[in-house]
């Protein structure tokens, strides 16, 4: 049996601050994501979703085991190579792009830093990613401020995918966007999943969105995983009281529509 693409065992992140009691932001979380699948991570703010993702990316010190394709990873030793294999899409496309870089510079940089590709090859790869993400050649010479929020998120996704990562973490990638733009970005991520076989950790507090993109869903509360399983099961027959509460908090229309469009069990 092939090992899951990403496997996390007993992950713990603790923040210590002066004499105050330490804050355990992530308390022993274990989860795995199979290759080509999307895991939706839900929970309210402060529950540890973002901390978990930052720990996986090596941006925070943590305890526990993180394995990529069955091999335990260490950011201290394999940092440079790992950063190429794992990429991140942020929530706010107004803050996550360098305002003084043109789109072309933004896309060239990772290819140069990680692969030292010659210019011609870099341009070729960039052209490919532009086609995939639905950006025009004309956008290469422009700066982020010349684009709308949805277009910026497209650029951020192109930047994350230009290195052809094995694994992508998307932290609330559509919560800053209008519904129509949100739909376009969700479709784009869906395309990337089918065309590139992308494996994704998708963080969101919007259950309707998670239900749409995720194969499996994990629910976090106060640093712990309270429920996880196939998306349909968790979102339609939740077992944990907290998941039930999250679902009950959805607007009435969204709730009734999503149960109506669910495939028959």
């Amino acid at each position: 049996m092939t090992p899951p693409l990403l496997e996390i065992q007993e992950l713990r992140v603790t923040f210590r601050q002066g004499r105050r009691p330490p804050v355990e932001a992530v308390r022993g979380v274990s989860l795995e994501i199979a290759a080509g699948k999307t895991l939706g991570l839900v929970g309210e703010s402060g529950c540890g979703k973002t901390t978990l993702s930052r720990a996986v990316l090596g941006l925070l010190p943590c305890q526990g085991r993180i394995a990529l394709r069955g091999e335990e990873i260490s950011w201290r030793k394999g940092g440079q190579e790992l950063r190429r294999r794992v990429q991140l899409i942020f929530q706010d496309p107004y803050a996550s792009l360098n305002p003084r870089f043109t789109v072309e510079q933004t896309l060239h940089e990772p290819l140069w830093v990680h692969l030292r590709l010659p210019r011609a090859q870099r341009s070729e790869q960039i052209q490919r990613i532009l086609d995939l993400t639905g950006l025009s050649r004309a956008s290469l010479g422009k700066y982020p401020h010349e684009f709308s929020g949805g277009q910026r998120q497209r650029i951020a996704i192109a930047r994350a995918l230009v290195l052809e990562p094995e694994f992508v973490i998307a932290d609330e990638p559509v919560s800053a966007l209008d519904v129509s733009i949100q739909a376009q970005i969700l479709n784009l991520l869906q395309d990337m999943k089918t065309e590139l076989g992308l494996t994704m950790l998708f963080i969101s507090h919007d259950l309707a969105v998670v239900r749409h993109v995720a194969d499996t869903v994990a629910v976090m509360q106060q640093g712990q995983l309270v429920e996880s399983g196939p998306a349909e099961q968790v979102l339609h027959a939740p077992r944990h009281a907290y998941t039930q509460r999250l679902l009950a908090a959805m607007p009435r229309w969204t709730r009734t529509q999503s149960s109506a469009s669910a495939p028959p069990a």
Partner: protein
Amino acid sequence: MSLLSVENLSVTFPLREGICQAVREVSFSLERGETLGIVGESGSGKSVCVSSLMGLVPRPPAEISGRALFDGVDLLSCRPKALRQIRGRRIAMIFQDPMTSLNPYMRVVDQVAEPLRLHRRLRPREARHQAIAALEAVGIPDAARRAGSWPHEFSGGMRQRVMIAMAMITQPELLIADEPTTALDVTVQRQILDLIRTLQRERGMAVIFISHDLAVVADVCRNLAVMRDGLMVEHGPASRVMTHPGHPYTRALLECHPALHPPGEKLRIPPELMVAGGPA
């Protein structure tokens, strides 16, 4: 007579080249105790529309035309003094971002009490007393003890409650809530929506609720209006708009919602929505 009747409201801003028509000939009326939701995407003019009623759109540069009668007084042409008599007392407003709309240098209790001091000329002690009662009414646990805290000591949901307490303390006849739950989590959003509804029913207050999310608005409001490019393209009872939208744009907004699609299937994006922000 309606509580608020807006006739042919237009707001334009001069640009370096030409003008921007943010709100175009919008008319609607609101009865006492009515709840109206205004929905639209960013840039559709919904916030400018209500801000101009509150005198929060500076002119110049903006040009505002039309009439907005609140209980017989035209909010757009009355004298500043008359507007101050109404604003904050008979019409209150809640803003989207509870992080930036509270004064960071003022203790919570003093902020909630301020409208009473200004509009009712209450003594500090009495105003404070009522402010604590108002904080309790919006569900802040242990209000008496927390009243002396600073805004930064509160979470987002709690700050939004403080905003609501402050808005409600003069018992306004109209509450304008501009995206009050957009910055909040689903569970906190639910609590705030329920709170606004309960207060609205208890006090028979009229509410204008602005949001980009049709589903959220339909939970709170009896009537819905949809705005696009400064125009009000649809206006009617929420039950009808959500099930039988009359305008193609409203239908399109509902159709691209992920809840309507089986998981994993691509979202249908109606051509009405492809104009702005589509692939360049």
